[in-house]
């Protein structure tokens, strides 16, 4: 290839192809059989986490010396995407752990923090990202959880809301303020053992979608941590969280925009009515004396949705590759999240419609995709917050 010809965002290297194939297989064989059970029970299967660690999905980018795969951010997105095509809850576990928590420790941890925490996070210990609180969601930096320094340790007090994977986590990354009057400049990041005295994980929220992923309140009552639990310096937590979220949202989108198969599979679910599946599906697949796939009104809808999915995919992987090459990516990532989370919901909704009545039943996967897809516009920053981010960057460009 000539020097001036650069590969496109969605052209995959040999490594990426091999990784994708492997994750695809894993998802089909190990995850798919559990999806409906986990959704109904609202619980992650006990063996699932262990398998995710064994496959190396929990330390995709972590350095080899800590037991990780030392791969790229784009490769993390590939893992998340392939898992999300089968189950958005499983992909969320992998997404948060890799794109937020591992990255925070890798970027801000000292060598001794890394060998203590990162080596377990890459191989055995699930982590949660504890930022949001009851009254600080979109305005995350109005948080009220406090960290009071007492001699050579800190005492943590407060309550976090909506913490994904908290029920199963072994490690928490926690954001607390050392001095509320400093506003965002008081925010400090801590890393701690999720099972230590004073940490109380509340009951799981009963949710519309991603039901197998636990979302809990976590209370901290006089939790004592040593000074070396601080990641970065005191007061640096704001930067740490912002940076993590700027990157994390790309991963969230690799997850969300396809929390229902990719375009090809989607279309095949549409086209399959006429030539396979059960009798009842075949019945629905023909109307007015011909297969519904012959109606142009439907053909155009499928074409449009495929086009939008492709656009979302390009946005996500373009942002991921910008990040990997060290180029600015914040606006592109926010745009990717904005567009793909909306696309995700639209596609899932359309699939339900195309299947007619059966699409509305729990017998077919699209009903679950539809429920799962909604979260994309809420977590790791709502749609409005992304519009705000994009606007601020536009404003700066034209100032």
């Amino acid at each position, binding site marked *: 290839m000539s020097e001036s010809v650069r590969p496109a965002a969605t052209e995959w290297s*040999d*490594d990426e*192809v*091999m*990784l994708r*194939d*492997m994750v695809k*297989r*894993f998802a089909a064989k190990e995850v798919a059989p559990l999806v409906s059970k986990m959704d109904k029970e609202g619980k992650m299967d006990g063996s699932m986490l262990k398998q995710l660690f*064994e*496959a*190396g*999905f929990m*330390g*995709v980018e972590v350095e*080899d010396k800590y*037991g*990780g*795969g*030392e*791969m790229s951010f784009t490769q993390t997105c590939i*893992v998340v995407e392939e898992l999300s095509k089968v189950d958005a809850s499983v992909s969320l576990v992998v997404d948060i752990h890799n794109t937020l928590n591992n990255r925070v420790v890798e970027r801000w941890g000292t060598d001794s923090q890394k060998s203590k925490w990162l080596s377990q996070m890459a191989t055995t210990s699930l982590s949660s990202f504890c930022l949001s609180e009851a009254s600080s969601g979109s305005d995350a930096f109005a948080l009220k959880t406090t960290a009071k320094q007492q001699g050579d340790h800190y005492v943590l007090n407060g309550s976090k809301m909506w913490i994904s994977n908290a029920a199963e986590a072994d490690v928490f990354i926690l954001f607390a303020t050392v001095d509320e009057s400093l506003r965002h400049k008081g925010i400090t990041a801590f890393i701690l053992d999720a099972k230590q005295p004073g940490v109380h994980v509340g009951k799981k929220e009963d949710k519309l979608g991603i039901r197998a992923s636990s979302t809990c309140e976590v209370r901290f009552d006089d939790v004592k941590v040593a000074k070396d639990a601080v990641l970065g310096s005191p007061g640096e937590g704001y930067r740490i969280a912002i940076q993590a979220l700027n990157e994390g949202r790309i991963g969230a989108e690799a997850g969300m925009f396809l929390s229902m198969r990719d375009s090809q599979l989607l279309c095949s679910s549409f086209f399959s009515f006429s030539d396979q599946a059960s009798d009842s599906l075949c019945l629905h697949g023909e109307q007015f004396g011909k297969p519904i796939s012959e109606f142009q009104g439907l053909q155009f809808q499928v074409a449009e949705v495929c086009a939008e999915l492709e656009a979302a995919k390009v946005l996500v992987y373009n942002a991921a590759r910008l990040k990997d090459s060290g180029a600015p990516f914040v606006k592109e990532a926010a745009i990717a999240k904005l567009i793909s989370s909306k696309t995700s919901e639209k596609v899932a909704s359309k699939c339900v419609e195309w299947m007619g009545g059966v699409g509305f039943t729990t017998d077919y996967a699209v009903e679950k995709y539809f429920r799962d897809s909604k979260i994309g516009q809420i977590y790791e920053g709502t749609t409005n917050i992304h519009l705000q981010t994009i606007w601020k960057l536009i404003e700066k460009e034209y100032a």
Partner: protein
Amino acid sequence: MSLSRVLVGVKRVVDYAVKIRVKPDGSGVDKTNVKMSMNPFCEIAVEESVRLKERGLAQEVVAMTIGPSQNMDTIRTALAMGADRGIHVVCDQDLEPLAVSKVFQAVVQKETPQAVILGKQAIDDDCNQTGQMLAGLLDWPQGTFLSKLEVENDALKVTREVDGGLETLNLSIPAVLTCDLRLNEPRYASLPNIMKAKRKPVESIPVADLGVDIKSHLDVLRIEETPKRQGGGKVESVAELVDKLKNEAGVI
């Protein structure tokens, strides 16, 4: 006893999940832009070899493939699963089983493994001949269609899936083994192992350098699509079924 070296064959074939399309002129299967993967029976062979090594029953696992440059992916997969090094016999022409066996024979003479482990067949042409021919050429004992492999004293104890049930044989080494479906469940290459595979050595050997006669002795006359299955029908009663078998199908 521990086998000093195991040579395992890995073939690159059209992925099992791909819907096969025959070229319009009937000259073969259309492979342009089709996803290719390691033959599933070869995966079983790699898995078994790696397990031997993990149990201390083999010291080195060498994966070998024959084919064009793209076969490097197949070797990489074997290395990521745990093979120690690779041999890529570079060859751009399709080989029939006898030629494949001869290429293996040449590499065996060079590498002197104590066992060659292959899939029982490849899912593309389903020949099921290479292992048997190779054993014949080498004049080694062979154990085909394995569902179990044990190493006992100085011999290989193999359980074979035969028509009437299971047959157990003791083979002296060196030997040629071919794997059936139930021998094991191949692992996923973990992410760290995918990365480590990049650092493992792979030797490329142009097929011409082996001095093997790979001339084809078979002519493919025509490849055809299997006939499309016709939809079935439902019957209300046994009487109706019998009637249809008699009068419509004419089979009773």
